[in-house]
């Protein structure tokens, strides 16, 4: 019953005309910046932060939160339409979403990503309301050993991301890990592979890498082919989902939501990792995994649900403990401090109206977003009929603006151009970029936690096996390795004389 009275308090706070308005404004801005590639919620919130000084703290947080999860909605749009991930967490949506668009099913892809996001957002809000406090304890069970083993599990799992050669997928993961090594070593502070360039001291920017390997590379490829330049290869089919689509997507949305809700709580890029993980789970669960990467609706539904759920549950550590799990929420913490609210374990008791008001506003925001986004689907799809010679310069310009705004530095634009060329080479070699991106995201965390674990145990590797949670992840990883390798070995024997690497 306490929950009901809490939610009632939340509704009282959130359903005032002013707070509803700020919720709408936040969701709208979030959708817009999500659609613009490169310009992410981080920069937007930074720019808008001073304008919230004059607002009451609840309204300010409601608006900023709206920008954050609104961006998760909008981020998928460019992934699907033009293969440029609007947000880091939408990278994996490119894989199947853009293929769907090329087959004339952009409407279905956009619709399922909006509906999936809505379902996930609603569920995650409920999770936040009911389980916020017990869930926040989960993060404390994760020491360096647990994180390391989770990363190992994730990396081995990521092999299934590849739709082509497994050897190449492993190669790309390793390359991603190596790229992740660039920058300042967390333990010693030494610069590695920076070649004396200070901008590289923070490593290769994720946005640069993702945008280069997907967006820029795609443009180069399209320009190469004179006749198939226009994105639309076949006629547009209906905007709305078919029954068959819904039947396939619904369980994917459910799995994605669960996966995102859980991973969002862990610090360090929960939304990105959850979208990758959801995709991997989908592909592993499917009876016909070879359809992934060819425009399978499940490949859109699952990651889009996951990243939205994760965006929402990542508020758990901030609201319950004051620990921001990622940069965007660190900025929210900054916003709270400006309003004289010290983010921390005392927020729930000292500012219950704020805590519950923000939670309820998230659900309202999700309603607003789905109402806002569904009618937009038709407009976005029409964008595909714009001739490519007009479309691609526009994409490039928006990419450059977005990239510059990340650090207010032109270095990132040059780096992205370089990554685009690299992506083109990979494309020619038929190496897929998705496993590389995952290796790049997980690599630094893998290394940091491996070294911290070894450092704290004074060089004794047994910590990774003696801590129960860590052991579970390692056993799961070993199981997955066997599951992946067995068919390969079996088929390898059958085709002993063919130099053919099996599909996973």
């Amino acid at each position, binding site marked *: 019953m306490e929950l009901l009275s809490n939610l009632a308090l939340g509704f009282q706070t959130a359903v005032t005309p002013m707070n509803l308005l700020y919720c709408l404004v936040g969701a709208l801005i979030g959708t817009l910046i999500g659609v613009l590639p490169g310009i992410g919620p981080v920069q937007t919130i930074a720019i808008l932060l001073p304008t919230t000084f004059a607002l009451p703290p609840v309204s300010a947080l409601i608006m900023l939160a709206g920008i954050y999860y609104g961006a998760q909605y909008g981020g998928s749009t460019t992934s699907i339409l033009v293969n440029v991930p609007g947000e880091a967490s939408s990278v994996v949506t490119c894989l199947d979403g853009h293929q769907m668009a090329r087959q004339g099913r952009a409407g279905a892809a956009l619709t399922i990503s909006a509906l999936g996001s809505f379902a996930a957002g609603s569920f995650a809000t409920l999770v936040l309301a009911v389980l916020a406090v017990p869930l926040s304890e989960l993060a*404390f069970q994760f*020491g360096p050993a647990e994180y390391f083993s989770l990363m190992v599990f994730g990396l081995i799992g990521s092999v299934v991301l590849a739709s082509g050669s497994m050897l190449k997928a492993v190669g790309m993961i390793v390359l991603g890990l190596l790229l992740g090594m660039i920058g300042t070593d967390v333990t010693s*502070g*030494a610069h590695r592979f920076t070649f004396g360039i200070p901008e590289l*001291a923070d490593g290769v920017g994720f946005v640069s890498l993702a945008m280069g390997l997907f967006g820029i590379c795609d443009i180069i490829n399209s320009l190469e082919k004179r006749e198939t330049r226009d994105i639309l290869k076949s006629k547009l089919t209906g905007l709305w989902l078919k029954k068959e689509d819904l039947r396939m997507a619904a369980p994917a949305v459910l799995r994605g939501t669960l996966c995102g809700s859980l991973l969002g709580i862990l610090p360090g890029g929960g939304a990105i990792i959850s979208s990758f993980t959801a995709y991997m789970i989908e592909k592993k669960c499917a009876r016909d995994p070879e359809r992934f990467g060819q425009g399978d609706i499940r490949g859109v539904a699952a990651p889009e649900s996951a990243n939205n759920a994760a965006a929402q549950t990542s508020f758990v550590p901030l609201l319950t403990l004051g620990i921001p799990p990622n940069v965007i929420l660190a900025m929210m913490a900054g916003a709270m401090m400006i309003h004289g609210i010290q983010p921390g374990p*005392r927020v729930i008791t000292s500012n219950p109206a704020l805590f519950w008001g923000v939670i309820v506003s998230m659900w309202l925001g999700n309603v607003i977003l789905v109402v806002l986004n569904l009618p937009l689907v038709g407009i976005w799809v029409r964008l595909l009929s714009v001739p490519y010679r007009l479309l691609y310069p526009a994409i490039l310009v928006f990419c450059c603006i977005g990239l510059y705004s990340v650090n207010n*530095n032109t270095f990132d634009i040059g780096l992205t151009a370089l990554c685009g060329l690299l992506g083109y080479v990979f494309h020619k070699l038929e190496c897929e970029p998705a496993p590389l991106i995952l290796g790049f995201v997980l690599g630094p965390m893998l290394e940091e936690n491996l070294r911290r674990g070894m450092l704290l145990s004074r060089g004794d590797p047994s910590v990774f096996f003696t801590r129960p949670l860590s052991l579970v992840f390692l056993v799961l990883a070993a199981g997955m390795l066997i599951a992946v390798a067995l068919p390969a070995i079996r088929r390898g024997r059958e085709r002993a004389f063919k130099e053919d690497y099996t599909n996973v």
Partner: protein
Amino acid sequence: MRRCCVGVLVAMMVVLCAAGMPAAQEIKGPIKIVVPYPAGGGSDVVARLIADKLKDSLGQTVIVENKPGAGGRIGTEYAKGQPADGATMLLVNPALFVVAPVVFSKLAYDPDADFAPVSLIQIYQFCASVPPVSPIKDVKGLIEWIKKNPNQANYGSPAAGSLPHFFGLMIGKAAGVEMVHSSYNGSGPLVTALIGNQIPIGVDAYDAQSAYHPDKIRILATAGTSRKQPDIPTFKEAGFPEIEGVGWNALVVPAKTPKPVIDKLSAAVVKAVRSPDVVEKIKGMGSDPAGTTPEECSAVFKKDRERWVPIIKASGFKAE
């Protein structure tokens, strides 16, 4: 045509701004405060608070420009190259002005030659803390525990080469044990590790941990000259007078900025820092407002270098 319009507009703005100011120390606005860290962090919040106040007292637009990267060194190098006319200020801290010159062999700036201090704006204390389940109850217990368990004496700091990193070394020195240092990616992960009992000792800025004391994290002592909170002693009171030191945020300008302009900026900054609502907000964040003359600020830089440089050198820590 367009460029011409913009030119006229800019000229008009300059004239308007100039008209409202005494001619002697005029600053051609808009003034920007370069924060070499991402928006939303602790130092960014303070810069924005002050920018808001300076707007009124200087009668100019004051904007905060975030130039993050390389632990603040990119923004610092950027500010060094800006015109020395008072329109660019830079927010700095001990990591940039005390530690970096010692640990980087090729640093792109020289704190003394390239910059002139304006004012100290905020002072924060360091603290040592333990997880709530820890058997360590006070500083004496901490030193004894370190002596008894040299093989488990690990401590965490928010970053390699940060002042808390070297502060931890000082604590180890007091116990006569070389503690193993593990750096976390910022204060948030360190707090999580402490609450979850993943690391036995944490050293960080007091304001990063005060919200968790005493239920989630037990703060043993702070390192300033006076208590921050009635129930937490200073290291000095606990019998370790050599464990002392504070961190700060200060504003500086490119070195060639004329002295009258610096004095004018300094006076405005002091007024901003000491205005009641800013004082309240800075205190609410767990640190103390400062507000000093350029000379006092310079003296703090010098004193802190004398204190820390031997410790940093003795640690053998090198970033490149």
